């Protein structure tokens, strides 16, 4: 009777209970604690039940890991959350791959080497390494170390296809277990690492939420694969949970853009489609000062704020909340409209606004808020672009046609804050800016909102 497996199941149960408590903001924090308790149990049980462990190395590893992980978790700014999630993800995937590699070096060439073991080792290394390098590329893009825009080169798909074939071939060779095993494992590692990079670089900008969710899912699959290598139920249960979670988020993000997953991964939007559509239309825009905008707000009863990635870049979440507070004190209704793919990861805007002390009841998702625009006096668009482009509803030639959007144009007045007239991520000029009921207020979101608040107070 393997008692340790009972404890692993208990850890799994705690993970599930923790995730279940994530279904409401009131219980979510305790859910996270429950989940971490599950992790503690899994680790302690492993330390107790497995003999012959190198406790010194383990202690050193845990101390180093705690210092690094803890430091970044405490220091990171809320606006930097997408890249933080990406990099933690990468370490998870890397750990899984390393464990599988360790298993290889211990068992290859011994009687313990079986087709099952080598096959699962291959899959585990493949998924784990791909998660590792892919997450670091995502991190570098979000952090601005490399260009956040899609990076493409001719023959990219063909090149990726070749690497994928090499990778598959090497995993098969590993499973068969003949030939020069250290060389084969090196090929598995290198091809997977390369694939993680080449699959991630062509994805950028507004497609990042999909990549982050997908990498999240991979890190779970990698842990589960390592569970298959070690026949460890704790890893399999937890890995499956995370894999499922990431897949659901990926699906929601794809739906938010009306694109298939294949299209996001291989589509590399932004490159070719951009130029043509942008050049064709000249828009007649009206540019107002914050003073003029303040007068419109003063006359309004119902205001809906639409935040986008620009808000995060300008770190304007606090300024936005201050303006909203002032307007609410004046007896006006203020709501926030959150598009599923606003920002660079699922729920990005919600976290930023929560940081600025905006109560979560005021944040409305797409289906909830769209009917509200009908009787809305002012929609204030802060650094969002493609998610409010009405072309998605009617212009079949638009690259974002069919994407569910926030119907801000139905409001009496739309006030759009942008830094410049540069088109959004999809590279298309937004026809909304030329609408009769649209007004542009140019400038950095934080500076603009601070000035707007000052002007409102003077009225």
């Amino acid at each position, binding site marked *: 009777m393997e008692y340790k497996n009972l404890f692993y199941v208990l850890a*799994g149960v705690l993970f599930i209970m923790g*995730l*279940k408590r*994530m279904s409401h903001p009131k219980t*979510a924090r305790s859910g*996270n*604690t429950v*989940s*971490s308790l599950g992790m503690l149990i899994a*680790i302690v049980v*492993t*330390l107790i039940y*497995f*003999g012959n462990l*190198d406790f010194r190395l*383990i202690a050193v*590893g*845990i101390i180093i*890991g705690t210092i*690094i*992980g803890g430091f970044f978790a405490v220091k990171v700014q809320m606006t930097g959350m997408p890249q*933080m*999630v990406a990099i*933690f993800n990468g370490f998870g995937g*890397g*750990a*899984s791959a*390393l*464990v599988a*590699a360790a*298993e290889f*070096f*211990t068992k290859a060439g011994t009687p313990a080497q079986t087709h*099952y073991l080598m096959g699962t080792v291959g899959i585990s290394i493949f998924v784990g390494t791909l998660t590792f390098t892919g997450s670091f590329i995502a991190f570098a893009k979000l952090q601005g170390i490399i260009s956040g825009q899609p990076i493409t080169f001719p023959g990219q798909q063909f090149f990726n296809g070749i690497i994928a074939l090499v990778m598959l071939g090497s995993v098969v060779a590993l499973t068969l277990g003949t030939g020069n095993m250290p060389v084969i494992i090196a090929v598995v590692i290198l091809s997977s690492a390369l694939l993680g990079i080449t699959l991630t670089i062509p994805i950028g900008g507004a497609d990042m939420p999909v990549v982050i*969710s997908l990498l*999240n899912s991979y*890190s779970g699959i990698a842990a*589960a694969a*390592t*569970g298959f290598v070690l026949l460890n139920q*704790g*890893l399999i249960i937890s*890995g*499956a949970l995370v894999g*499922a*979670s990431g*897949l*659901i988020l990926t699906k*929601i993000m794809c739906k938010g853009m009306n694109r298939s997953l294949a299209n996001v991964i291989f589509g590399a939007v932004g490159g070719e489609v951009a130029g043509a559509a942008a050049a064709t239309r000249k828009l007649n825009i009206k540019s107002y000062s914050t003073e003029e905008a303040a007068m419109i707000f003063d006359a309004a009863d119902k205001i809906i704020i639409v935040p986008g990635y620009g808000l995060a870049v300008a770190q304007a979440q606090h300024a936005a909340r201050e303006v909203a507070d002032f307007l609410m004190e004046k007896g006006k209704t203020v709501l926030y409209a*959150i598009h*599923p793919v606003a920002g660079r990861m*699922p*729920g990005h805007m*919600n*976290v930023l606004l929560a*940081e600025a*002390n905006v*109560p*979560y009841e005021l944040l409305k*998702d797409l289906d909830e808020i769209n009917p509200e625009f009908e009787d809305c006096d002012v929609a204030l668009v802060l650094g969002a672009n493609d998610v409010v482009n009405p072309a998605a509803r009617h212009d079949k030639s638009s690259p974002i046609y069919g994407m569910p959007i926030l119907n801000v144009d139905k409001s009496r007045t739309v006030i759009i804050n942008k830094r410049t007239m540069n088109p959004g991520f999809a590279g298309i000029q937004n026809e909304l800016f030329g609408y009769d009921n649209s007004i542009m207020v140019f400038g950095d979101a934080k500076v603009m909102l601070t000035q707007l608040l000052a002007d409102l107070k003077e009225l």
Partner: protein
Amino acid sequence: MIDVITIFILAMFIGFEVITKVPPTLHTPLMSGSNAISGISIVGAIIATQTGGSVGTWLGMIAVIFGTINVVGGYLVTDRMLKMFRRK
């Protein structure tokens, strides 16, 4: 082997059921929280140090570092975020 596949599939289904109920407002904490769970590979990493002085042991130790970064960082950052969510 059939046992572990059964466990994997059932756990996936539980995951789908539970996570579908998470509201969009909590999607980021969900991601970083589930991310921390994927640091469970630290368990495998600890076991890998068993082999005594070989390449496997050292790979295991690096894996322990990686896994700990994932677990500690993931849970802490999730807690930091969830602390901020408040009602009216």
